[in-house]
């Protein structure tokens, strides 16, 4: 399962088809995706009922935690981390949390703590495929063992500390406990994986693009790493925040910064420039799907094996509307090829889509966040 949060959203007029059903009328952005018509479902009219928070909405996009902008906001587990508890151990990396820059990420642990994202493709590549030499390997194995004894020992320390602090601090200490225990598990798993060699690949190690204004270049390079990770079955769960930013993207014809263009205020010149950026974003996404579709795994394409949720934490960036999120659900063996249009005035909870996806992954759940069921009209 892959989720992509296009942080600044998509201009709704260029995305939302006017007609629903299998013969939906295409739109400028969907025309970029036309070759995937039968591999994807367009879902409109969904959002998180207690959403909001403008750009901060990314925090609850995959968690459905209510009111992300409120001061007492408490986040909860994201769908990828929930899935990782079930299917994480089967791969070398239980999940990957990625972005294009900065510290924003859409993965959150059970405690609502953000999973730190990686924004450097070279680092992702190194983790996935590069090995140390044999002395290093031996040292690495010893290090993992030491790590476990250390974790075990500090758990004892934390227990002692627990007796000295009050209820509120015990909550903080719980985070420490959970983190240390999870680390023990990860070290154990790492020891097991350590014995197995990393996949041998002939992909070229990437050179990171340092210019953060190269919005599309950076996103595309990360998409490529995501494809490698899936193709080698190094992980089955990836979240990716495709960031916006306050810089002028290096796209011909674009003269203003991405974020202020997204607040176009219906200025046609701004919308025109924004369309250039967003079209390029759609093209980069299409290229990712193209790679997935052309790779095959056990007789079917990798795309058929992988659910890809392309969405945004914002429905209309111009007025920070968190409703009517743009959603494309591609691959994963669903019966695609239609536009599921839900009520734009009274949205379907996005969590319904999540429940359908999590069930497809084999999780035995019938509720997530604010869900009221699964998504109707989506068959496998």
């Amino acid at each position, binding site marked *: 399962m892959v989720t992509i949060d296009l942080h600044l959203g998509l201009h709704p007029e260029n995305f939302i088809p006017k007609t629903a059903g299998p013969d939906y009328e295409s739109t400028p952005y969907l025309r970029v995706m036309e070759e995937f018509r039968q591999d994807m479902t367009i879902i409109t009219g969904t959002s998180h009922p207690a959403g909001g928070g403008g750009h901060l909405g990314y925090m609850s996009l995959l968690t459905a935690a209510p009111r992300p902008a*409120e001061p007492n906001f408490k986040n909860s587990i994201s769908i990828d981390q929930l899935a990782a508890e079930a299917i994480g151990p089967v791969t070398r990396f239980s999940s990957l949390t990625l972005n294009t820059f900065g*510290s924003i990420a859409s993965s959150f642990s059970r405690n609502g703590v953000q999973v730190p994202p990686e924004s450097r493709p070279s680092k992702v590549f190194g983790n996935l495929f590069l090995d140390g030499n044999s002395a290093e390997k031996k040292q690495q194995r010893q290090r993992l063992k*030491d790590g476990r*004894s250390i974790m075990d020992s*500090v758990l004892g320390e934390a227990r002692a500390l627990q007796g000295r602090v009050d209820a*509120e601090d015990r909550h903080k200490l719980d985070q420490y406990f959970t*983190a240390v225990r*999870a680390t023990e598990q*990860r070290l154990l798993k790492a020891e097991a994986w350590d014995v197995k060699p990393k996949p041998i690949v002939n992909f070229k190690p990437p050179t990171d693009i340092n210019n953060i204004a190269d919005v599309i270049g950076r996103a595309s390079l990360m998409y490529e790493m995501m494809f490698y990770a899936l193709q080698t079955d190094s992980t089955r769960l990836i979240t990716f925040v495709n960031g916006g930013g306050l810089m002028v993207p290096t796209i011909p014809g674009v003269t203003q910064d991405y974020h*202020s263009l997204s607040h176009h205020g219906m200025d046609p010149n701004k919308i025109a420039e924004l369309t250039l950026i967003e079209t390029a974003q759609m093209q980069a996404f299409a290229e990712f799907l193209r790679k997935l579709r052309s790779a095959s795994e056990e007789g079917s394409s990798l795309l058929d094996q992988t659910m890809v949720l392309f969405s945004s934490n914002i429905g209309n960036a111009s007025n920070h509307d968190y409703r009517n999120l743009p959603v494309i659900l591609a691959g994963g063996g669903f019966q695609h090829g239609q536009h599921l249009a839900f009520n734009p005035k009274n949205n379907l909870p996005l969590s319904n889509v999540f429940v359908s996806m999590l069930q497809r992954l084999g999780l035995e759940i019938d509720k997530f966040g604010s869900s009221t069921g699964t998504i109707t009209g989506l068959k496998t």
Partner: protein
Amino acid sequence: MEIMINNPCFGGIIPSSFSLDRHAALLLLVACLVSPCLAEVSSGPSQQFLSENCFHCHSGEAHEGALNLEKLGTDLQDLSQLNTWTRVHDRIANREMPPKSEPRPSTAQTQKFLSELSADLNHADLTHRRTTLRRLNRVEYENTVCDLFGINIPLKDLLPEDSETAGFDTVGDGLGISTEHPLGYLQASDQLVTKILEPDPKAPHISVRIPFSQEPALSPQMGKLFLKLDDESLVIFQGQTRNTLFYSAKAKADGTYRGRVQAKTYQSKRPLVMELQAGDTNALRISRLVGYFDIVPSEEWTVVEFESFLKKNDYISIDPYRLRATGKGDEVFKGPGLMIGEISIEGPLETWPPAARTKLIGDTDLRNGTTDDARAILTRLLPRAFRRRTTPGEVEPFLELTENSLKSGRSFTEALSVGLQAILCAPEFLLREEQLLEQSLSQPRVISPEAFASRIAYFLWSSMPDDQLLSLAADGKLDRAEVLHAEIERILQDPKSDRFIENFTGQWLGLRSFSATEPDAKLFPEFDEMLRFYLVEETRAFFAEILDHDLSLLEFVDSNWAMLNSRLALHYNISGVFGQQIRRVTLPPGNVRGGVLTQGSVLSCRFSSPAQCNAACVRRGFQQSTSETPNGDDRSSSRVAP
């Protein structure tokens, strides 16, 4: 009236009537923490004042503004009541209530009412305030281990980035602990301990001293980019060519190197600036600025000396700032150039064993250390690592790890490393436990003197308290005002207090992300690397000036002076400022560059339009909490350790 500066780094609340007195914030903290003389919550706001002036509208069935003061309780332990009374206080203090259309009470009556009410509110606020068990952020983590062992090693990038709350990474509730954290701590402590305990790496030393014109790497460009004079000195006419490399003095090991350059101006009546960079430009690694140096016209050589950290394969490069004549390395060209005579580099300056190793293990021979040695080493370290006195039993779990490793036949160094790493991953090290002296629901909570010492140190040093501060705390001397004052003075004098300036301005004014955006080269052709460097320095220097001289906080809003050097003055179109040194300059009358709001760093950082920027500045810098007393939901600001 008090305007509350609701800023996490100040530990909550500072009345605006304080200047940013170097003691003010701390005295306030002390008042919060140790003052025993706070009155009990009084019987409630003066009923007489309320019934005469407020009940007319705010009581009964038809009360206005959803506020029924008659029915509003006076239990200030209840957060919603506390918030409502705070709002009542502020609206009256701001003369918004009673409204103009109504008869108003006399000033004396109002003052009396407000002073009674604010005393109760302040007291109640204190009893509500507590700090969350706070994790060290990654900057603090790095500083703390460096100070604990007396070593300089970059570690923070091994740890996950900290999330910000209200713009700061010092807020307990915002600093979560994820699974990535223990992994990061394991990795960081491993690197650190390995570095301290490693055997003599026998780092190859270099010492090169030549006339720069003899540098072989320059010969291909001799007569093209460079001119060689009869006296063997070299003239550089063009900067930023990436060709003026001191390549024969390439570092053979990581370490600190000392350098010396002779420089003069050539065919120039005006001073020039020499820019030194260090790095391995061949490997496309970004080079780091060593410094900008003034070269004033003179018959004599100007000798520039510097110390810089070089990684293996790094070397120095020299550029004349803003000289752009291309291909003028012949004798006919009459334009200005930078003349370089002799140049030398020597290093690494570090000797083995490093001080950190000696400090940690004393005279223990690591080749045949024993359990007793390990016990002595860990016992010495523990109270400093935990920033408090420890009991003899507390070392046992860590010692046990070392013992077990020894028993399984591993070397003493390896065994000791495991114990040391465990201390550095322990919650007592990573979290700032604040033990309370006494605890009761209605009383302000009082933390132990050692926890107080930690607060001061993390506030002003972004790091652990040093031995002196900790022992004063342990001896109970820190609650004596003169001792505390002397300590604060000492702490601010210490170069470590630069971290406070860097971290605070870095977050408050967004300087940390200053370089995240690139000005459009077409719109701002004058922007260059030097300006990028000094714009940030300007704002830090401005903050330091206010801190060092106890100036009023209002200077942040508007001052008749600025911290400038020649580059900044050129940028701001202010004449008469020469040289690289940033110093205080009195601004011409009517000049707008006083205060932080009009500084280039603040204006350019992160915002795509001046309007956005100003809005953010006002929000961040001058946040008023007059109508939003920190409440239970807003733990981020009220429950913050400095």
